[in-house]
């Protein structure tokens, strides 16, 4: 009986700890960031396309009217952010748990890089890293600043600007222009 009493007391302690920790847990909104959400970080099962244009081409774009379709030609890089991998999805159990005690500011996920190759798009698989603080997406060849969409090279020198494209329409375009890739 003594042991049971101790275990029940420890459970009560766990509950009290939970309530004190969770009562102060504030949801982190990332709505203002590229690929952000009002309900937290870019979600595990979400997909997105982001097109990055070099400075000379991005200069012609009205910020109030960002591009909604993939350019037919020109010098651009299309980044595809698919859902997180199977094991990364499993790992989200820990992320959801620990976020109640301390901020979780970053996560990794797969990446597809498309670049124009004549009339088609070449494809390269890679890994990427999302961060809220600092608000950046780290790519193998560049960095995207999530607060203003600027595209930086590895030395953090500006190389252009990035824009989110509509998912389903862009998937259709990619299926036509890069039929050999996973999409």
């Amino acid at each position, binding site marked *: 009986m003594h042991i049971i009493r101790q275990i029940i007391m420890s459970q009560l302690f*766990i*509950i009290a700890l939970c309530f004190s920790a969770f009562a102060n*847990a504030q949801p982190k909104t990332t709505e203002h960031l590229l690929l952000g959400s*009002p309900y937290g970080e870019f979600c*595990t099962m979400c997909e997105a396309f982001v097109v990055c244009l070099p400075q000379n081409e991005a200069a012609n774009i009205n910020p109030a009217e960002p591009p909604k379709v993939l350019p037919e030609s020109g010098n651009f890089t299309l980044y595809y952010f698919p859902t997180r991998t199977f094991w990364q999805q*499993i790992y989200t159990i820990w992320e959801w*748990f620990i976020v109640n005690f301390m901020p979780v500011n970053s996560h990794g996920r797969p990446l597809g890089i498309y670049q124009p190759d004549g009339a088609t798009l070449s494809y390269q698989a890679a890994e990427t890293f999302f961060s809220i603080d600092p608000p950046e997406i780290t790519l193998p060849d560049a960095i995207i600043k999530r607060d203003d969409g600027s595209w930086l090279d590895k030395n953090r020198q500006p190389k252009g600007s990035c824009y989110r494209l509509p998912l389903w329409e862009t998937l259709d375009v990619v299926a036509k222009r890069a039929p050999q890739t996973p999409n």
Partner: protein
Amino acid sequence: MNDLRGDFAWQWRWFGSHPLRGLGIILHLLLRILFGVFFIAAGINKINKGWLTTDVMEKIFYQRLTELHPDSFAAFFLQEFAIPLDMPLAWLITIGELIIGVGLIFGIAVRLNAWGAFAMMMGFAIGGYYDASLLPLIGMTILFFSKPTGHWLGFDRRLYPLQPWLFR
């Protein structure tokens, strides 16, 4: 017999003579308590985010709708069932998570609460929120349902004579 513990007892002698079973029971109970804490955390976070008082649930559903293929069953489910019932669902999920969490931590109606957690997660999966993290969580609910863990540790043992089907 007024509980379902069988020969199990919180005695060093019992653990000494059943080391593997004892380890299994300890791990099982640890998992149950962690699962309960996870659910309470989820419930409290939802309260903090205004799930019970604002239209945040509806916004979440509409956002998810843009991410799902328009022809998918999940999109149909959200449009025809979840979005029209957003507020009742927000309450059901939030309060349900808190009840399940408390039940699992204190060993009160563990099997019923495990079934509730299972049903809730299946609902998430059907509603377009499937991801692989649901697999181990669903597996755990089946584990909690399969054994009388509330009789190993919790109030089910004491409550069982009052209502055997509820506290079994």
